[in-house]
């Protein structure tokens, strides 16, 4: 029986910035059609891993394979083809304010296809309709609310019908209701298009709602990869701390108050 190739394969990836190791021999497979949520605290390396997966950075060592193609060693033409198969919705939406929403979505179609303008307009409208923004095409991105911007960014990510859809902190800066709507959109897209979805987040409620599997990063290393149930049942102290929202350092307010009073009285802190 032939083994099914994963859509994304991260193999022994090492990344360092200024001598500081950000990703330390990370291995991760994302299967076709599954939603993988990358979890981790601030500075855990999840955004770096995401940038590696979408080909914005090259690893110091190791491989990132998208449908079997090694991004670091692929030729420019092949890299371009792979990039077209990945749609990315950025944390800050990254819409071009100099263009209308529909022009933002039409941009990749105009750059990479030879479709007639009328077809591009129709496709753009369809992508906007999928994310519930059919009437917002003529607006400037600046006129959209936070949630609408995220939706528009998803529509642009969908423009070239990608096989892999990547979300960077989709719930960041959104109220719980809009964040929940975005979760439903991600689930709806996955159901409708059978896409492989990778989501970077630290919103646990969102992660448990949308994930098929989860991977947890801590200080540049993967400490767990598994289903929601497996992660919830984990006894790993860092995972328990993350799931139960336990702070690293609990501030002793009484001791702090005494320290300040000592300082104000001219004593050492």
């Amino acid at each position, binding site marked *: 029986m032939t083994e099914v190739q994963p859509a994304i394969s991260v193999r022994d990836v090492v990344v360092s910035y200024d001598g500081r190791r950000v990703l330390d021999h990370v291995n991760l497979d994302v299967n076709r059609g599954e939603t993988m949520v990358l979890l981790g605290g601030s500075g855990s390396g999840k955004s770096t891993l995401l940038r590696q997966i*979408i*080909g*914005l950075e090259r690893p110091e060592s190791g491989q990132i394979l998208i449908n079997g193609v090694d991004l670091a060693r692929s030729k420019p033409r092949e890299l371009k083809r792979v*990039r077209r198969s990945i749609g*990315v919705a*950025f944390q800050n939406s*990254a819409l071009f304010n100099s263009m209308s929403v529909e022009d933002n979505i039409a941009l*990749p179609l105009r750059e*990479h296809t030879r479709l007639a303008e009328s077809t591009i307009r129709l496709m753009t409208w369809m992508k906007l309709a999928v994310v519930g923004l059919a009437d917002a095409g003529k607006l400037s991105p600046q006129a959209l609310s936070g949630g609408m911007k995220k939706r528009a960014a998803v529509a*642009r990510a969908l423009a070239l019908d990608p096989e892999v859809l990547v979300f960077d902190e989709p719930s960041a800066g959104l109220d719980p209701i809009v964040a929940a709507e975005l979760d439903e959109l991600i689930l709806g897209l996955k159901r409708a298009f059978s896409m492989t979805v990778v989501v970077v987040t630290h919103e646990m409620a969102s992660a448990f709602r949308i994930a098929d599997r989860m991977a947890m990063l801590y200080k540049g290393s993967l400490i767990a990869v598994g289903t929601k149930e497996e992660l919830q049942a984990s006894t790993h102290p860092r995972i328990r701390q993350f799931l139960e929202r336990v702070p690293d350092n609990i501030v002793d307010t009484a001791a702090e108050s005494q320290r300040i009073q000592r300082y104000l009285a001219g004593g050492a802190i």
Partner: protein
Amino acid sequence: MVVTEEIDALRTMAIDPIEFVLAPKYLAALIVLPCLTILGSACGILAGGLFMRISTGMALSIYFTSVAHSMVLRDVFTGLVKSMAFATIIVHVGCLEGFRVRGGPDAVGRSATAAVVKSTFLVILADVGFTAIFYLTAAR
């Protein structure tokens, strides 16, 4: 564009940021800067005429005739070549600093200042170089 992840977005859409961001600006500067140079030079000549008229009472027709006599086509050519070189410097330094910016709005401000300082310095250097070249070639 770097700070707001727009450059990253272009790259993930397999659109070359150099082609998309730098090329149109460079083309525009190559067209506009020579036009501005011509406009600036014309304003300078006109201002000279008005100054002569007000300060010495010289007729504008005499002034413009003497300007036309003293100007040669080479002057226009060197001015236009220089303006195109300056356009190249300004756009490339600006885009280089823009692409290299990291961080938030503070970094954008610092980067914009660095672009202005560096391009001004390089424009002066280029001007010195071009003046020397044109002077030496004219003397032969």
